[in-house]
C-alpha cells in the first residue's frame, strides 16, 4: 500500500471539513468535536504521508516545491488546531480546512521529482525551514480570520442578517484570534530567520550576503509588527486593521512566489 497515508489523510481532512461545515450550519456541539477529532487524525496521517514521501525521495520533505507545500498545509493545520484549543472556538474550521486540503492535494498528487541530495541538511537548517513555513501558515490563518472578519462586519453593518451571520464567531474573537495567530507567526519568522543566518554563517563563514529574500522578509516582519501595534489604536481598530492584515498576506504571497521563483538564489521553495 504505497499511498495508504495519502488516502487516509485525504479521508480524515474531508471528514473534518464535512463535520465543521455541519457544525457551522447546525450549531451542534457533537459535529464540531468530530471536526476536531478528524482534523487530529488527519494531522497524524499527514505526518506519516510526509515521512513516506521524504523516504521515497531520500531527502527532507521541503526540498521541493510540493514538499514544502505539504509541510505548509500540515503546519497550517497545527496552527489552526492550537488556536482552536486556545480560543475554544470551532466555527472557523470550515473556512480553514479547504486550504489545508488544497495544499495537501496539490502537493501529493503532483508527480515527485527525483532530486539529488543537496547541501541543505542538518537540524539548524531543518528548524530554519520549519519555523519559516510555520510563520507563513500562521500568517495565512490570520488572513483567513481577517477575511471572515471583513465579511461578517460588512453583513452586520449593512444589516444583511442571513443564517451565516449567526454561525460565525463574534467579531471581537476573530480579532483576538487573528492577533494571536500573527504573534505566533512573528515569533517563528524571527527565530527562523536568525537560525537561517546562523546556518549560512556555519556553511560559508559569512553570515551576510545579499538576497532579495532578506529584504522582503524584513518587510513582512515590519508589516505584521505594525499590524499588531495598530490593531489596538483608535484609527485602525476593527475593519481597517483586518484590511492591513489582508494586505500583509499579499506581500507574503509575493515573497512565496515572485521572489522565490525569480529573484532569490537560495530560497527556492520557502
Amino acid at each position: 500500500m504505497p499511498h495508504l497515508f495519502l488516502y487516509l489523510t485525504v479521508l480524515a481532512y474531508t471528514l473534518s471539513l464535512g463535520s465543521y461545515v455541519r457544525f457551522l450550519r447546525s450549531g451542534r456541539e457533537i459535529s464540531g468535536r468530530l471536526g476536531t477529532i478528524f482534523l487530529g487524525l488527519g494531522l497524524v496521517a499527514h505526518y506519516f504521508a510526509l515521512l513516506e514521501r521524504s523516504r521515497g525521495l531520500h531527502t527532507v520533505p521541503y526540498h521541493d516545491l510540493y514538499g514544502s507545500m505539504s509541510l505548509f498545509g500540515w503546519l497550517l493545520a497545527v496552527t489552526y488546531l492550537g488556536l482552536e484549543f486556545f480560543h475554544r472556538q470551532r466555527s472557523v474550521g470550515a473556512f480553514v480546512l479547504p486550504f489545508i486540503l488544497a495544499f495537501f492535494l496539490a502537493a501529493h498528487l503532483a508527480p515527485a521529482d527525483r532530486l539529488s541530495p543537496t547541501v541543505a541538511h542538518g537540524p539548524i537548517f531543518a528548524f530554519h525551514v520549519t519555523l519559516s513555513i510555520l510563520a507563513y501558515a500562521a500568517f495565512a490563518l490570520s488572513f483567513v480570520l481577517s477575511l471572515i472578519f471583513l465579511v461578517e462586519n460588512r453583513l452586520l453593518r449593512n444589516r444583511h442578517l442571513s443564517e451565516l451571520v449567526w454561525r460565525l464567531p463574534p467579531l471581537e474573537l476573530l480579532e483576538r484570534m487573528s492577533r494571536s495567530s500573527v504573534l505566533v507567526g512573528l515569533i517563528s519568522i524571527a527565530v527562523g530567520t536568525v537560525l537561517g543566518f546562523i546556518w549560512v554563517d556555519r556553511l560559508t563563514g559569512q553570515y551576510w550576503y545579499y538576497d532579495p529574500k532578506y529584504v522582503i522578509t524584513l518587510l513582512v516582519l515590519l508589516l505584521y509588527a505594525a499590524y499588531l501595534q495598530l490593531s489596538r489604536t483608535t484609527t485602525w481598530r476593527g475593519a481597517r486593521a483586518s484590511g492591513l492584515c489582508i494586505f500583509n498576506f499579499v506581500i507574503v504571497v509575493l515573497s512565496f512566489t515572485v521572489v522565490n521563483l525569480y529573484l532569490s538564489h537560495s530560497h527556492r521553495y520557502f
Partner: protein
Amino acid sequence: MEIVLVGLNHRTAPVEVREKVSFTADQARRAADELRSRGILEETLVLSTCNRSEVYGVPPETSHNCLSGLASFLSEFHSVGPDILTSSLYHHYDRHAVRHLFRVSAGLDSMLLGEAEILGQVREAYRLAHEQGATGPVLNRLFQGALEVGKRVRTDTELGSRPMSVAAAGVKLAERIFGKLAGHKALVLGAGAVSEQVVTTLRDRGVSDLFVMNRSRERAVELAQGFNGKVIEWADWDAALLKPDVVVCSISADEPVLSRGILEAAMNARGNRALFLMDLGMPRNIEAAAAELYNVYVYNLDDLSAIVQQNRQAREGEVPRAEAIVEDHVGKFLSWQASVELVGLVQALRARLRAERTSFLHTRLASVTHLSPKDREHMEVLMDEMLEKLLIEPAERLRGERELRRKIQNVEALRDLFLSNRDKG
C-alpha cells in the same frame, strides 16, 4: 390503568378564566390531596403555569365517571361556575393525554413556540407532586418521559434556540460583535416597560455594569435600583457613552435623541471601541446617519422585528422534527404501559379460568356418577395443568419479548375480549 387529563390553556380559555383556575404551589398540593382522598384519582399531578392549568391523573379502575368528577372538583375548588368551565376545559385519555403532555414539555403547545420556561415548570410540578407522594408508578414514568422529551427536543432541534423577542434578538446580535456579554457594560436610555424587558435580558446574559438615563430621574432611579444599576444625568453624553459597549434606546421623542455629532464625539473619546446601539424608539431615537460612523452598529425596531420574524419561520420549520421526537417517546411510554398492563391481564385471566374450572367441574361432573373421588381429583389436577400451560407460556413470553409487548398496545381490547365486566376489577 388509564391516564386522564383535564385542563385549559391559552387556546381554550381567556385570561379571565385562566387566572381563576390557576394553582399556586400550595393549592396544587391541596388539590392533589383532595382528589386522592375523595377517590377521584389514585395518582395525581397538577401542572399550573400562566398559560395553562392541567390535572393529570390515574383514576381507580372501578371509576367510570372520573371526568365529570374532575370537572366538578375544579369548579368547586376554584369556585368557578361549571358552565364557564365546561366550555374552556379539554380532556384527553391515555395515548392522547400522553401525547399532550409530551408536546407541552417540548414547547410545542406553548403560546411562544419552543419557549424554554415550560420544561422547568413541568420539572417543578413533578418534583412537588413526587415529594408529596401524589404520583405513583404511572405518573412517575410519564413525567420522567416528558422531561426526557423536552430535553431531547431542545438539544436535537432548533425549536428553542432562536430569539423570539425584539429584546432577545438585539442582545443576540450584540453577542455577534462582543462574544459573551459577561463583563461588558450597557447603557439604557429611557425607563419604560420596553427598557425593563431589555435590561432583564441583558442581566441574564451577564452584563456587568448597567447605566440608566432617563428624562425623569425618579423613574431612572426606580429602574436602576431593581437591577443594581447606576443612574446617569439626562443628556450627560460624555459620561454616558464612554464606557458601555451596548446602548439601548426607547424614548418617546419626536426628534432623534442621539445625533450623529454626539456619537461621533463619543466614538473619538472611546478610541473607536465598537459600539452597539439598539434603537427601540418609534420614531427613531438615533439619527440614521450615525450608522455610517466607523465601528458603530445601529439596529432599529424594524431590523430586529425582521430577525424575530425570520426566527419564527425557522422555528416553525423545526416543528416536524420535534413532533417526530414526541411520537417516538409516546410509543416508548405506551409499550411500557402495555407491558405492565399485560402482566395484570394475564393474572386476571388466570383467576377467571380457575373460577371457571371449579364451576365447570361442579356442574358437569355432578351427572357423571361412575367416577371415584380419586378420579375426580385427578381430573381437576389435569385441567389445572392444561390451563396453566395455556396461560403460563404466553405470560413467560410477555416477560421476555420486548417486540411482542410493543405490538400489543391495546390491552383494553384484549381485556374486553376475554373478560366480562365483572372480572375486570
